[in-house]
């Protein structure tokens, strides 16, 4: 780990500028640790090399659990007393399918929410580190790290298209 790294945050007007800045920072061999944006930006995520989201697996797992638990619940409860209603079989899979379906959706959504919370790291208490309120407005915020020695260069580079907001020294 770099013991004398400086984290610089800067704000950019548009996605294009941001992307350009990222490229440039990368070219200099510095790291872009985070980009904050007011809207989702696929290209930025791509540029940062973020892989595909794994939220879907949570959702899928939830769905599978839901499907089987829906059926199981219906079947289990029906067999407690084996009551015959309307001459239908005690285990009537056809109507039970509706229960299973709803449970599938419900649990898939639970899975999805769980996936979102874990993947997003929410709720996050100290979100304010390196955060600028403009990022929820119309600005894109870059968080770049450079060796202390190169901090000024970095500032200059990002300062060309963006506004440098902060330059912190990070120890350890």
């Amino acid at each position, binding site marked *: 780990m770099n013991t004398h790294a400086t984290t610089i945050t800067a704000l950019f007007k548009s996605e294009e500028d941001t992307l350009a800045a990222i490229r440039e920072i990368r070219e200099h061999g510095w790291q872009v640790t985070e980009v904050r944006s007011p809207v989702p930006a696929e290209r930025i995520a791509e540029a940062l090399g973020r892989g595909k989201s794994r939220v879907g697996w949570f959702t*899928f797992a939830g769905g599978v659990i839901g499907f089987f638990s829906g059926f199981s619940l219906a079947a289990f409860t029906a067999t407690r007393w084996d009551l015959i209603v*309307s*001459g239908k079989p005690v285990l009537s899979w*056809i*109507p039970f*399918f*509706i229960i299973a379906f709803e449970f599938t959706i419900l649990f898939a959504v639970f899975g999805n929410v769980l996936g979102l919370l874990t993947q997003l790291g929410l709720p996050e208490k100290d979100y304010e580190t390196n955060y600028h309120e403009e990022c929820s407005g119309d600005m894109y915020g870059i968080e770049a790290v450079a060796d202390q020695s190169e901090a000024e260069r970095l500032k200059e580079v990002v300062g060309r298209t963006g506004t440098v907001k902060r330059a912190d020294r990070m120890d350890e």
Partner: protein
Amino acid sequence: MNDMETAVKERIEKKSGSIFLIPALMALTGFVFFLVPALSGHAEKAWLIYLTNFLLFTGLSAGALLFSTIMHFTRARWSHKPAGIAEAFSAFFPVSFVLFLLLFTGYGHVFPWAGQDLHGKEVWLNIPFLFLRDGIGFLILYALGFGYLFHSLWFRLKDSDRNTRLKRILAARFEKTDHDAEKMKKRMTVFAGWYMFAFAMVLSLTGFDLVMSMDYHWFSTLFGAYSFIKAIFAGLAALILVTSLLHLNPKVRFSMSSKAFRDLSTLFFGFSIVWGDFFYSQFVVIWYGNIPEETSYIIERTMTEPWSYLAWTVFLVCFIMPFLVLLSRKIKESPKCMVVVGSLVLAGLWVEHYLLLGPCYLHEPGTGFGAGAWEIVVTAGFLGLFTAAVLAYFRQFPDVLDNSPEKGGQWK
């Protein structure tokens, strides 16, 4: 660019003879095979296959064109290419209409209710009226379809060479029409709207008339809607199959982005769920209601051997399989996989048509059904007719296979 274009053109023209040879042979064999039982006392069996195939191919060709109209109507951006292929399916319309007229020759065998005491249903179920209304329905549907196609081709072909006969004819017509793209687009939208409307009405009507009424005791309000949803589903399956095949065929200069495949497959996935939903909606209501007037139909088809095997096949192939397989993004983007999925679903839908109709025709248990060689040959005959029609379209309008992104981009 131009060189390649002419190269394709030449290849198509050169190979035209051989291209049509196989489909023509298939059609001919199919026809002969159809005639054998038709004339030798197993007429029901023959007409059953005829009707099954007629409905499937008519449905899928109309359904495919519907895809194009929907895409146009909702101003979707991604679907320019597949819509072009889908429009090619309309080449089957004239064939379908002729096939419909031919159905008339077998009316005695086609309609199990003919000559029965219908307890008041005669007013609706009589052969002249049925042929009249369904014939008119098809005419309207096909006319609107061609009207739409005309406008669509205006956009696709207005700048292309007039190197085929049909193109030349069309070009002459184009001369006479407005040259204002906005206006044409508007008119195209109107045709699309009316086509969609007619599609729903005519497919419902023929669903009632040519499928539901075959068991003349049975009735289900959803059947019409189920029929046209099924037709769209079949249309999409066929469309995916054809686009994938074209995409995979190195000799044809047609390709589609994986994103477009994904979108198309997602739509297909969606319709498999809608089809499943409609199927279930009908089934659960009838199952739960337990009124024999309604249940006997589904009992015969889903709970009585041997038909129940077919029912399970349909259920697995047309719903479970696509549902599970198409959850995967990779498969959706892979034309190879989609060839398999598309053809399986089409086969499944063929069986589904056969399952709905079969018990009305084959009364004696064990008279054999299913994918016997004979059925396959006759079906292949219809497939031949369909292929020939689509190929002819491509031969006349090779432009729709054109891969250039610029042209596609200009359309909307």
